[in-house]
């Protein structure tokens, strides 16, 4: 057995935000995030991710991810704990790593505190590669607690009802198209809100990501269906998508990467879970990233957006993001 190893990664960002009609324009310290990985043997390890987030009058500390992992082989890796829900692409690919994502802002559907998809998942996860040759297929199967009564949060202290949540994700990294990742998943849960009837939730997501930087293309689509458990005729859908294209320039301009993103969220007004939340949204995002240092980037971003027919707003963001890594 090899000696235990301990690794640390850190992410952080500082932003300046200017927004139409907002008197609170100014500087914001984003999340400071620490990743701790301990390999206790060749097949057993512990992973933790802890964040420090600035609030109005204090900082909040949260265990974003905490899991124990047993890697039996490439085909079977079992873990238990708290995860970024493996739903879609962005939520698990970038999440708290502002430096990792090309843009400043996350798509609205997977923003921090989103009610549209369960951002975190608490339970067990089995994952691994499937024998598929050049298709490069892999799977994830999860079983655990559903959403909390505050649906923006995970069920950290047990499931709020007796119906557990489950998810299945299938993805492909074709070996003959290095850089391409395709995937789809399904998530199911019964949601319990305080003083409200229970709601069955089924979410299906599909995505395609071309991760080479010249260009980088990410497209993701999510469809959710919500039905009252006791009255399936009371139902509604949520449809959300975004598409993002970026392009790393070449030669002496290789540190620059312009990008554009378009996104839209439509929530049925009859949706028994989210219909009254005012979550309709559309936006266009235009920006540029400058990797002035191997471990830090400055990004400038303009966003034109509209929430629930409330009129379009413009905002401008400037951010410096960084990673603390030894590699």
């Amino acid at each position, binding site marked *: 057995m090899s000696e235990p190893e301990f690794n640390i*990664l850190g992410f952080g960002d500082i932003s300046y935000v200017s927004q139409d009609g907002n008197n609170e324009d100014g500087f914001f310290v984003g999340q400071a995030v620490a990743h701790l990985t301990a390999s206790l043997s060749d097949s057993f390890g512990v992973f933790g991710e802890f964040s420090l987030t600035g609030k109005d009058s204090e900082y909040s500390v949260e265990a974003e991810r905490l899991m124990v992992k047993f890697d039996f082989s490439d085909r079977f890796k079992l873990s238990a704990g708290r995860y970024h829900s493996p739903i879609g692409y962005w939520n698990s690919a970038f999440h708290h790593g502002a430096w990792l994502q090309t843009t400043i802002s996350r798509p609205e559907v997977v923003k921090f505190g989103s009610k549209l998809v369960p951002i975190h998942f608490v339970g067990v996860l089995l994952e691994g590669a499937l024998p598929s040759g050049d298709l490069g297929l892999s799977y994830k199967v999860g079983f655990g607690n559903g959403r909390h009564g505050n649906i923006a949060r995970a069920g950290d202290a047990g499931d709020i009802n007796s119906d557990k949540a489950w998810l299945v994700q299938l993805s492909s990294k074709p070996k003959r198209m290095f850089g391409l990742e395709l995937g789809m998943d399904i998530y199911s849960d019964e949601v319990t809100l305080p003083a409200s009837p229970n709601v069955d939730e089924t979410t299906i997501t599909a995505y395609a990501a071309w991760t080479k930087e010249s260009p980088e293309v990410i497209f993701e689509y999510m469809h959710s269906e919500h039905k009252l458990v006791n009255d399936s005729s009371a139902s509604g859908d949520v449809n959300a998508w975004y598409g993002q294209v970026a392009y790393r320039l070449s030669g002496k301009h290789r540190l620059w990467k312009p990008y554009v993103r378009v996104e839209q969220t439509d929530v049925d007004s009859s949706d028994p879970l989210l219909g009254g939340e005012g979550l309709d949204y559309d936006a266009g995002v235009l920006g540029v990233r400058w990797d002035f240092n*191997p471990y830090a980037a400055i990004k400038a971003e303009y966003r034109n957006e509209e929430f629930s027919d409330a009129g379009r707003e413009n905002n401008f963001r400037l951010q410096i993001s960084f990673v603390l890594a030894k590699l």
Partner: protein
Amino acid sequence: MNDRATMQAHLNKLIRKFMHIAVCMLLWSVAPPNVYAADDLVTPSPIAIVVHESTGVSNLSLAELRSIFLADQQFWSDRTRIILLVRAPQSDERDFVLNRIYQMTEAQFRRYWIAKMFRSEVPRGPKIVFSTDVTLELVVAIPGSISFIRADEVTDDVKVVRIDGKLPSDSGYPLK
């Protein structure tokens, strides 16, 4: 309502343009100019892939080798964990491997491994080694290890893996 309809029309037009640009860029990128190539790449000798002598593999396809170097495959068939040793920056061997196997620049390589660790897909990044001598010592000492050195620096203590059925001395060897 007219404003709403006009805005929706603008949005639909924007979406169509966006999809058009995305499809064109994706098609173009399938056969891009070699933006990852290092213009002054030095390859004084073929690069040999070496493994610990107990490793039960003698031949890998280039696709399998890439999968191992990308940590998409992390175990040998006997379930020994693969330990990847990579030369530190500023070495010709590293430049060659980044160019030919990873198809990445130095910055993309660094970002790839940070992302891999961030997603908790690997417990650690590759072990960084600073010389051929240290590479050889570690490959000899660590079961499951794999690395790369110049073919003319291979010793009898390590096992050289055929790539696509060819040894570094064979014509058509892919890592020349």
